[in-house]
Every structure is written in C-alpha cells, then in structure tokens.
C-alpha cells in the first residue's frame, strides 16, 4: 500500500486511513501534525482497483466498518473518527 510519510517525533507506528474530501480526516491529519509526531497516511478515495482493495482489506482488519478517519497505532490500537482526546492518550501526549 502506498503510504505518505510525514516526519516528526517517533511515538510508534501511526497509520491514518483517510479520504481527501473528508473534513474530519483532515482535522485528524492536522492534529497529528500539530502534535509533531511521525505518521503515515493514505487517501483511500484517490486509490483505484487493486490498490484501493488492498488498502480497504487492511483497514477492515482494524475497523470492519471501514470508515474514515481511522487511526491505527502500533498495529493494535484503533481510533475511529476524529477523537482528539483518545489520540493524545494513545500517544501518551
């Protein structure tokens, strides 16, 4: 899967599944940027065919409803929606 990496402080592996048109996804991106942590994101709406399918399959393992934004931390903790408090807590910030 093609992930865009955004540099910052290493707080573990953070993957954000997002849509380019979704305001809550972009709020989540901004939160991670403001927190200054390193993270990767993918805009699933901009993917096609197999790329989209594999991104969705991966997302469904964490969030079966496959909704956006979904933030996955260290391949375990999954935060669905823009939940500032939960994201900060999960990152111990």
């Amino acid at each position, binding site marked *: 899967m093609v992930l865009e990496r955004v540099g910052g402080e290493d707080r573990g592996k953070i993957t954000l599944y997002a*849509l380019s048109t*979704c305001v809550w996804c972009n709020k989540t991106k901004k939160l991670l940027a403001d927190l200054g942590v390193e993270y990767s994101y993918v805009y699933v709406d901009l993917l096609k065919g197999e790329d989209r399918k594999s991104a969705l399959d991966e997302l469904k393992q964490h969030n079966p*409803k496959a909704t956006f934004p979904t933030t996955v931390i260290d391949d375990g903790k999954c935060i669905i929606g823009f939940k500032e408090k939960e994201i900060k807590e999960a990152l111990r910030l």
Partner: protein
Amino acid sequence: MTDIEPSPEEVEVLRQQLGDEAEEMGYHLNPDIGFTRNLVRGLLLNEGRYGYHSCPCRLASGERDDDLDIICPCDYRDQDLNDYAACYCALYVSDEVLSGERDLSPVPERRPSPDEREKTVKGFSAPAGESLSSLTYPVWRCKVCGYLAARDDPPGVCPICKAKAERFERFI
C-alpha cells in the same frame, strides 16, 4: 484521478444555495463557515469525480446505484440529526447546535458496512401483505425524509426535501 479544484466562488455559491434550501425546509447548515466550505468543496470534488454529490466523509464506489444512499443529503441525515444533533459529516446541524445550546459530538456511522450492504437485496421491496392488496394505490416512502405518497409512481422530486424519485422505496 485528476481533480478539478473548485474555485472559492463555486464553493460559496453552492454553500449559499444549500443553506437557503436547508432553511426553507427547516434544516440548518453548520454555522462554522470555514468548516462548511470545506465540506462543500468535497461535494463539488465528488461531483467532478462521480457526477453526483457523494458524501465527502464516506468512500464512494463510483457506481451510482451503490452510492444512492450517500448522495447528499444522505438517507441517514434525519436520524443522525435526531440522535446526535448533526449529520455524519456535520454539514447539517440541529436547532440546539445552531443556537449554541449543544456542542457537536462525533457521529458514529449508521450506514451498514460494505459486507452488510452486499447482503441486502437491492431495489424496491414491496411488503405485499394480503390485507393491503385492496389498497387503491401503492405507498412510496422518501428514504431521505420519510415523506409518504400514495400514488402509482413516486413523485419526480420529493415535495418535502427535494430528493429525486430514485430515493423513494415502495413502502406498502
């Protein structure tokens, strides 16, 4: 996919139009103008991509039939306004949010998951109970706002929420 970025003027025109339509029908757009403009930009991008105003906060398949329930206003708006005081994207908000009596809170996704959707049969389902067979007309229900119309065919446009005929289901 190359998107055509909508101009700020186009965004503003649609925002005004949606706002006027909403007020006329007793709905309200989110008063946070910057936030609402971003959502309207998403609607316009989706129109360019798919040909319809697919919900900016949900993944469209690009197949109109599969996306019908999430063409804005989606089938889930009214229930979410009742339960969470906003639609899933928070483009539409309730009176309490507008007046500042209530804060926005995250709205959980009500739309069935992709797997659940695959299982449901598409198209009009007519619960044809025997006792109803004596009705002179079938009853059509607007999936966006719940308006009912007893007539041979659904109206071309819902007189209440302006949804198109394709958003009606056979109710009785």
